Each structure stands twice: as C-alpha cells, then as structure tokens.
C-alpha cells in the first residue's frame, strides 16, 4: 500500500516535470538549442503569480479560482521573457559551436537567478490555496486536492501546446522551421520570429507550471537548475521532440524520485536523479522514443 502511495505522489509531481520538459524538448527540437535557463522560467512564473497575488490582495493566499486566475498573466509575462531571450541573446550564438550556446544559456541562467536573489532574497515563498477539505482519500491513497489540480493543469497545458502545434497556423510554422528552416523561409515564414515564438511558448508553459509549483511546494531563486536538469533527463529518456515520450518520462521520473524518497530518504532523490541522467546518457543517448540518431 505504501508503494501505491509513493507512486501516486510521483505521478502527481511527475506531470509537472513533464510539462516543463515538453517546452525544453520543443526548444531543443525546433531551435536546436539546449536552454539551460529553462528552469529559471519555472522560477519566474512562480514569483510572478506570488507577487500578483501579494500586491493585489495583500497576502499570497486565495481560493483555487483566484490562484488559477493568475495563469493568463504568468503565461503572458513569461512568453515575453522567452521571446526576448531568443531575440536578444540566443539568436546571436545560433549556428556557432554547440558548447557556446550551452554557455550563453548557462550565463543567462546564473544572471537571472542572481538577480532574483538580489530582488527577492533567498527565502522560499509559497502560495497558500484555501480549500475546505484539503485531501481526498481514494482506496487508502491520499491525494491532496491542489496536487490533483496541478496534475490536471500540467496535462491541460501539454495538451494545449500539442493542439496548438498541430492545428494553428503558427504551430504549423513552428513545425516547418523545425523540419527545414531554409525551406520554411522560402515559403514566406519569418524564421527568426517563429523561433522566438517557440522560446516564448515553451517559457510560458514552464512559467505556468511554476504557479503550480508555488502552490504545492515553494519557489526560491536557485530552484531553476534542478528543473533544467530534470527536463534534460526526461527528454533524453523520451527522445528529442517527442511529446508523448516527455510525458511518460516525466511521470516515470516523478515515480522513481518519490519511491526513493519514501523507501530510502528524501535527501537522496537528487543524487538518484543526477546519476540516472548519466546512466541514461550512456545507455540510451537517443531516447526510448527518439527518431533521429543525433550526436
């Protein structure tokens, strides 16, 4: 029974990891950049919601609907951040050495994280959600309601992104640029704008996940790198550019972490995740669902 509880806990947080990783995979697949500042978008999203609530209502607490109402704002702000990150910075290193692109995004990650630290101190902050009856009990397994909302929210975000890529004109442009930027430019797609839009969309989703993270855990300026690395683990597992792979990878990573936390100790979850990263890179560098043999 305990194991069932660990796995349910894992699936609940795993969906959030998955939604962050989907954006990471999208940037990797379309723009061919590994964005090491992706985790900072989760952090910025959480803080945006926190401050939106704290500045308008005076406290960082509210009913579930009030908290969810911050989502459009967060999505808008983080879209702008991601769009500008690509347009102003990442664009300048496109097509140079791979390592330089990693280094630029790592530098951006450090700068954003440290600025956040200067502005908001290192204290962890969280958004309190007022729910009448905080947890459900389903067949002996405890499911906190807000975690369930976050879980569903992560699926809705991922689904919305998928539908957007499949159905909308911009989504088709993004897929076209991912397949062949030159041909896309020939048929009149603004490649630079499309790449920046991809960055914006991915950051917006990461930011929205940040809101859920702020409600069920907390946000603090230095949380980003962990989310970036987890995204990397998930994408390597699921394959670059595969949304189902990223979803499955996220759920699996969450379950493994929570089981480790439950069986051994929560201290060891990060050590296990990072070791898993190395093992996966060695054993399956193209992912379980990867189509291309890129190296």
């Amino acid at each position, binding site marked *: 029974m305990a194991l069932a509880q660990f796995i349910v806990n894992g699936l609940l947080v795993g969906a959030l990891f998955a939604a962050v990783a989907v954006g990471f995979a999208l940037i990797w697949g379309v723009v061919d950049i590994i964005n090491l500042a992706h985790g900072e978008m989760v952090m910025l999203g959480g803080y945006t919601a926190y401050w939106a609530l704290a500045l308008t209502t005076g406290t960082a607490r509210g009913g579930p609907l009030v908290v969810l109402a911050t989502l459009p704002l967060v999505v808008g702000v983080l879209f702008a951040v991601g769009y500008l990150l690509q347009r102003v910075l990442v664009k300048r290193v496109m097509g140079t050495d*791979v390592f*330089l692109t990693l*280094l630029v995004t790592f530098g951006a990650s*450090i700068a954003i994280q440290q*600025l956040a630290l200067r502005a908001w101190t290192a204290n962890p902050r969280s958004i309190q959600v007022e729910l009448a009856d905080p947890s459900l009990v389903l067949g002996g397994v405890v499911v906190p309601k807000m975690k369930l909302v976050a879980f569903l929210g992560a699926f809705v975000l991922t689904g919305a992104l998928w539908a957007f890529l499949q159905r909308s004109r911009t989504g088709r442009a993004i897929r076209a640029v991912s397949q062949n930027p030159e041909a896309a430019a020939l048929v009149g797609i603004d490649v630079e704008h499309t790449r920046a839009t991809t960055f914006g969309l991915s950051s917006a989703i990461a930011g929205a996940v940040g809101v859920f993270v702020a409600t069920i855990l907390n946000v603090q300026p230095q949380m980003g790198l962990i989310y970036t*690395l987890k995204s990397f683990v998930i994408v390597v597992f699921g394959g670059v550019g595969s949304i189902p792979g990223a979803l499955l990878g996220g759920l699996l990573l969450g379950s493994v972490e929570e089981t480790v936390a439950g069986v051994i100790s929560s201290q060891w979850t990060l050590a296990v995740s990072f070791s898993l990263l*190395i093992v996966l*890179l060695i054993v399956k560098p193209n992912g379980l669902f990867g189509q291309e043999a890129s190296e």
Partner: protein
Amino acid sequence: MSADEGALRRVLPPERVDDFLGACDDYGWLILVASTVLAGTLPLAGLEAGFYMTFVTDLFLFGILALSWDLVGGQTGYPSFGNMAFFGIGAYTTAILVKDFSVGFPVAFVVAGGLAVAFAAFIGVIVFRLRGHYFAIATLGVLLAAQQVSRNLEITGGASGKILLDTPSAEAFYYLFLGVLVAEIALVYYLSGTRFGFVLNAIRDDEQKATAMGFNTTYYKTAAWMLAALFTGLAGAAWSLDNTFVDPQTAYNGAWNVELIAMALLGGSGTVAGPVLGAFGLHSVIVVVDTYATGWQLVLLGTAVIVTVVAFPKGVVGTLREYAAEMAYYERGGMAAANDGGDDPDEDSSPAGGEAG
C-alpha cells in the same frame, strides 16, 4: 569601423604584435622563470598576509583551475561543466584526513590529488563515450551528484560541512598555490610541443581522423582528463585548509565551474597563457565589483559569460594572434598563402603566467 581599424593599425601594427608573440614563444621558458621569481619575491618585498595576499593567492588558484579546464575543454575539445567535482573531492579528502584522521597536511595533499585522479579515471571511462551537448551535461550531472553525495554522507559533515582549525600560514599557501600553478604551466607548455599535445589538438579538430591515424583517442582523452583532475584536486586540497571551511555548496560550486570556462575563453582557449591571463583578469574584475557592490559578483559573472561568448569567443590571446597573422597573410600573398599551409601557427603557445596581478 574602418577608420577605427586604421588608427589601431598605426598605433599597434600587426607585425609588431607578431614580433611580440614570436618573442613570447622564443623566450617562453625565460618568461615563466622570470614571472615565477617575481611572484616568489612579492611576499619578501612587503606583500603581507591579509586582503592583498589572499587576492594574489586566489589569482593563482583560479589560474590553476582555468588552465586545468582548458587542457580538456580547450586543447582536447571536450568542454566540461563538471571540473569542480575534482576540486570538491580534493577539498573533502584533505579536510577529512586532516581533521578526522590527524594525518599531516603534506600526506593529505598528495592523497587528495591521487583520489581526484582515480575518480577522473573512473568517470572518464564513462563520460568520454559522449560528445558535445551530452558530454557537457553528463559532466554537470557528475558534479551535482558528487555534491549531493557529500551533502548526505556522515563523514563529510552533511550540508553544514567541516570547519578546519590550526591551518598553516597564509604565506605557506601563497607559495603552495604558486608552486602548483608554475608546475602546471610548465607541464602544459612542455606538453604543447610534444606528440601528446599534438594528439590532443588533433582530437579536438577531428577525432575520427585522429582515430584513423591509429591513435587510441580514449587513452589520450582520459590521460588529459586525469592530468586536469590532478591539478584541480591539488588546488581543492590546498583550498580547503586555506579557507578553513569546506561545505558542499562551495566545494562543488557550479557557478565557479562556469567562471573557469569564462576565464579560459576570455584569455584564449587552447593556448597556455590565455586561460591563466583570463583567470587573473576576470578574477580581478570580480573582486573589484565585489568590493564596491557586494553581492553582485555572480550577476556580473553571468553577464561576463554572455558577453564573452557573444562578442569575444576567441579570447585575448586568440584575437591577438589572428590580428598578428593578418600581416603574414598579406606578405605571403593572400589566398595563395592560405592554401600552401606553411608552418602551423596553432601549436606554439607562450606561457606568461605567474606574473602576479
């Protein structure tokens, strides 16, 4: 732009730069010895323990770390985000041996270097199967995993780390760091003119061709990696006692790792003098910023990394060399000279480290 360049050419003609770089190459060993003597006499000439001695000692420390990074990242073309893992292992080994087992510092120092090398050999077998993105991220994973393990074990003192008392004097560490730095510069400078150094550069330029030429590239890569680990581990070993305090956050400092890379790139990656000069320059800037705007140094670091990569990816030494080569290019008849190869300007490097800031 062209007016600017014209002015620059008058003030600093490329052939002068070429002569200067050539002289650095010709008198490399002499420059190294002279700088070492100069740095060695500084404490006798009035540099006393305190802010300035700590500052110069830190210059040596970062010089060691940046040059070690560049041996694998710049010379061999395997840029790692995980070098600080060796540093942490060196630091913790010394701290544990000295504090819990009452081992003398010299013995602990040697053991720390040895353990860092052994760890590098073990990890090297695994990570050198990867390239590019995957290598960089895997090494970052190694660093963070090592940090987590140190945070969770009992023997390392957990998240709060270890406090070390009764450490040697600041002057002793000044000479120790200087000694390690000079030894490393001498070794890397020597290697850059040997077959070993050429094979490392060949691996960077085209690993498949290097393999086709019959070199066991895994052997060369791992050897370079172990050498880098040795010096990084020794630096960590000395740092732990000099700092009198070791904790997971600082000993396995990911931001430092990025700092080393910025130093190497800024000075000129793939050269001997570049990473050391880059370390001296960037660390000086960071210390100045930290003095006048405490707490902003990491913001500056992030910005410095971005600016370096975007505007200055070849670094000071690389840019100078390119500028100097321009004249030779015209003298030998432009494109025609480019085709007949000539002597390879990439391989000669000038050590000019050891000069105290």
